[in-house]
């Protein structure tokens, strides 16, 4: 194979993936029952641009295995950076442990009490723990909407793993309970200057796990947040 041929083929494959993303994957899927977003209502007509084309094209691509090649190499996907799904309907979390004498400790600080990120991290640290807020938010949102909603197994497992991960950072051997506290990132739904509506909320207990029995339970959380619910579900972290 000549070098020019490889270069040409690589370029064309990348263009193919680019057009696939642009034409077939770009759509507006943010749920309508999220609440009152003024900008969405004003611009709704612009947001349904590619829908018809997509249905046909995607059905062709779904039969191929090209997505595997793409995922493992160029990763040209429908990349979203700071779109609505990164902003609305999200909750931050803190992992708190209870010692047998009732003392509460927080060995793993992902977010601070004022919702800021834990800045002790260096430039070369990952955001894996912070990004888990998207998965935590999925559970909280669904639970707030429907109290009888069963938290899916994968989220149950995730909560256990987060708690255990945090407990490992703790020098105390005996922990009686793990808790996950949550708070809404109450982003304003229209321009209100530099006000910070998220500061009026208090952290609430969402998840509780008894270490000795391993039994987990979920608490009802109720925030008077001005915004809304979102039904958008993440499949892992978001960009």
């Amino acid at each position, binding site marked *: *194979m*000549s*070098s020019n041929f*490889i*270069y*040409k083929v*690589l*370029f*064309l494959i*990348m263009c193919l*993936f*680019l057009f696939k993303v642009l034409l077939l994957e*770009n*759509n507006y899927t*943010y749920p309508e029952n999220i609440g009152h977003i*003024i*900008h*969405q209502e004003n*611009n709704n007509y*612009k*947001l349904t641009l590619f829908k018809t084309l997509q249905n046909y094209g995607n059905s062709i691509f779904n039969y191929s295995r090209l997505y595997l090649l793409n995922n493992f*190499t*160029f*990763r*040209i996907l429908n*990349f*979203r*950076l*700071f*779109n*609505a799904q*990164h*902003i609305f309907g999200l909750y*931050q979390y803190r992992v708190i442990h209870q010692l047998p004498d009732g003392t509460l400790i927080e060995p793993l600080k992902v*977010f601070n009490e*004022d919702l*800021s*990120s834990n800045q002790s991290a260096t*430039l*070369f*640290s*990952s*955001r*894996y*723990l*912070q990004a888990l807020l998207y998965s935590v938010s999925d559970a909280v949102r669904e639970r707030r909407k429907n109290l009888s909603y069963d938290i899916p197994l*994968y989220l149950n*497992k*995730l909560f256990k*793993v*987060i708690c*255990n*991960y945090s407990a490992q950072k703790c020098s105390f051997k005996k922990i009686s309970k793990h808790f996950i506290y949550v708070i809404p*990132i109450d982003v304003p739904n229209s321009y209100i*200057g*530099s006000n*910070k509506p998220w500061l009026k909320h208090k952290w609430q207990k969402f998840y509780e796990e008894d270490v000795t029995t391993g039994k987990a339970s979920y608490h009802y959380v109720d925030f008077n947040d001005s915004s809304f619910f979102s039904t958008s579900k993440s499949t892992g*972290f*978001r*960009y």
Partner: protein
Amino acid sequence: MIYRIEKFIFSLRSGHVNEKLVANTNLIFHILSILFIIRNIEHTDILYLFRSDIILAINTLQYLALFTLFLSVFINNKILYILNFLSITTLLNLKYGYNVEDLLFQITSLWIIFINVNKIKLFREITFWDNQEQRSGYIFLFGFNILITIFVSGIGKMLDPIWVGNYGIYYVMSLPWISITSFADLIRENELLVIILSKLAVIFELIVMPLYLFKKLRLFSILLLYLFWFILMFPMRLDFIGPIGIVSSFYLIAQINLSCKL
């Protein structure tokens, strides 16, 4: 028609490769990758919580990646580059979720192979490049790969309610966990600034890839890309995206003949 397309594709290559810069960037990238894999190992419980059945294989891959990356700091060897890429891409595709820094590490480790290895022998000999002009083509493609991602993000913003309304920056700066508070407050209290910055952000994402296609504007496009990485590093503090983005983009500079530009 096909001839014209071919001619266009080949005309995108700059024909210049700054070998010193490529070699130094290789070194820095491999050191960063070691840090990245160490972070991956630290968070194994969380990142691979749904892969407990193959956790031994994942651990093996992590340490293989660490070992080959460590060797790559000292040795310039094609087998090592290929092993680095295979282990990194497998680890990242198996993990729970996928972040921007994962993307940058994956595609950089892929394109390092094409940029540094001129030929490999599998069943038959495959030549990636014979001369610097052909080699510069792979550097161009690497940049194209990064910028496609940003371009797609720009298109996404055009379809997004908060960005369509020109208030995207306001909402982003309203996320208390992302940006530095004092800086965010400064921007949020000025509505006109919010609108201007939101428009500029979308315009940047939309034009940076098309600009890159023009040889004369490529340096400008890369400089814009640097600005983007720096903003993600400060005031956004999206850790690890900034450093890896800056390092990866050194490769893109390597295709520009700076002595000619200056």
